[in-house]
């Protein structure tokens, strides 16, 4: 099972990352940024679907607010009508989470690739020999320079800068895509998630190699930019939730 994982995901990610590093003047940090762009391009159909869903949700806000006014005192009816509206429009309010879940295998592969490529111990360097393709571009790139800007990409960022960037960009991205809910229970869950996920990733940034956190940060920034241009603005970042508006 593990060998299948390495064959299909682990080793390709590792080799592409190293090849990118060679193409980008041996800068491993730039290679991670390049790989992030590649991953975002590959997952574009999924992102596009999610953005469409998000835009549809945003367009539905006047109708939702109408429902809020109409059934404000009957929560059950309000939920039924809201869900009906969502179903008719073919949107899922939590659709933004799926791209994140689908990216999990990429995160794992990237984490492993960063640690393997940087080969912090002799054992890792020897192990790396068995995972590299026979491409010249890969073999000429080894060993890699682990330093990028102020970061040692194999170590967590000691200055917390990346943790703030990862947490902050994740919050903005989620806030832009997360539709306000009419159900108070759903609202509290959404609010909690809006805070929990950036906090958790900020915390993980302090624990994991900064190369992985760099991927998170760049991926979030790309997400924010595409969201901004695709939906034509800051989305729900400037919206007030229905409960706040009543």
């Amino acid at each position, binding site marked *: 099972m593990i060998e299948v994982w390495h064959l299909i995901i682990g080793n390709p990610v590792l080799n592409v990352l190293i090849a990118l590093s060679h193409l980008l003047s041996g800068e491993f940090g730039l290679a991670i940024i390049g790989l992030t762009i590649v991953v975002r391009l590959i997952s574009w159909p999924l992102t596009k679907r999610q953005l469409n869903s998000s835009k549809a949700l945003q367009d539905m806000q006047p109708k939702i607010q109408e429902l809020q006014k109409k059934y404000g005192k009957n929560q059950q009816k309000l939920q039924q009508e809201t869900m009906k509206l969502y179903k008719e429009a073919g949107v899922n309010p939590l659709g933004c989470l799926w791209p994140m879940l689908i990216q999990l295998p990429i995160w794992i592969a990237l984490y492993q690739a960063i640690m393997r490529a940087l080969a*912090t111990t002799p054992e890792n360097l020897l192990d790396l020999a068995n995972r590299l393709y026979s491409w010249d571009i890969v073999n000429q790139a080894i*060993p890699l320079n682990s330093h990028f800007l102020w970061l040692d990409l194999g170590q967590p960022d000691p200055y917390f800068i990346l943790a703030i960037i990862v947490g902050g960009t994740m919050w903005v991205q989620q806030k832009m895509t997360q539709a306000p809910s009419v159900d108070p229970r759903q609202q509290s869950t959404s609010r909690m998630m809006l805070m929990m996920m950036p906090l958790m990733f900020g915390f993980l940034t302090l624990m994991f190699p900064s190369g992985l956190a760099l991927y998170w940060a760049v991926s979030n920034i790309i997400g924010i930019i595409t969201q901004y241009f695709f939906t034509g603005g800051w989305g729900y970042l400037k919206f007030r939730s229905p409960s706040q508006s009543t």
Partner: protein
Amino acid sequence: MTPYLSYRMKQPKILFLVIIALLPLILVSCLSGGTQSAGGWPGTTVHDGIIYAGSTDGRVVAINSSTKNLEWSYSIAPVTAPSSGLSCGQTSVTTAIYSKPVVDRDIVYIGTYSGQVLALNMLARSQNLTFPQQRYGEWEWDCPIENAKSNAIVANLAMSEDALYVASSNGRVYSLVKGSGDENWKREDIPVLTENAERPEKLWTSPVIHGNTLYVSTYDGHIYALSLETGELLDWSFESEAGFTSSPVIDEDTIFLGSFDRYLYAVKIGSDVPMWKFPEEKPAGNWFWASPIVNEGIVYAGCLDGKVYAIEAQTGGKLWEFDAGNAIVSPPVLMDNLLIVTDESGTVYVFDLSAELEDEAAPLKVISIEVDVRSSFCAQEGLVYIRGEDNWIYVVDIDSGTVSWKVPLTIEE
């Protein structure tokens, strides 16, 4: 309420719980798959009937090869290291050893992954005297190599008449006085991987002495020549497109060493271009990780692609190759007219170099110790001393083609 609506209402909480529960679990589970900690693969040395080796539990061990008993062992203090991944704080880690002990008179020298050079007196050790007796004492010392963040010693030590030469992971080369561990000189401007002297990286290949010069190969594809006396960088250096994986081996005025681009290079000292690189056409199946060995104008090189190559030293032409089937990590050794090669799976191949060239490629003997081997080993008087990855020393008798005896390195004094 319809079941559909009920499900849709519960969905966010279910999703939330799944994400919160799964994310850290998945990330933690990937920790073990990404890296291997520094366990070490210490080499073996035999001197005056005593086998010296490091063990993976952080000890230097001396075993009497006649009585097969432990003469002495010295435990290196564990080091504290920051925890990785989701765990916080610091952990105590056993000191790993990658280098091979070197012996001079009564003293055994060895470098450690914690960045120390140890000098252990065999006589004092066998008498259980306290270590160190005195920092600048006559017979035992340890020398912490600076307080750099990353000062691990992976390379073997080089030894001259009165000094030791140490390549460190902090990118520096040191010369230490053999008697005291005092620093003769240090070279800290060797640009390993980065031009920024504040952030040098690994120098894991072993320095080699040739005449009055110390030769150092680097992972960024350079060979540097340093004055043995002063540590000054000499005029000549060599630059290759790819980094060098193996330590240099020098025969007359030619340096032989393996590279990350899967070629073995021959470089004439003083020349800017390689004399040859092997294989001539397409690269080998993997890196030449182990240092080659040269005998009577023939270079014998083991490769991680599982092959042993015999190459003409002057031309780089292939004389023969033998496919062992498993990666060759340990450098081959010579004993009389025998070439001894061990592959990673623990199979020992003995080649008769006195045979006709066409017969040389067929191993005279194939002996399996049935345990993985990564360490450098040694051979003497018909016996091969190999440290297996199970932390045992295997003594292989070439004549009988069997494991003569074996001893664990984890035994207590």
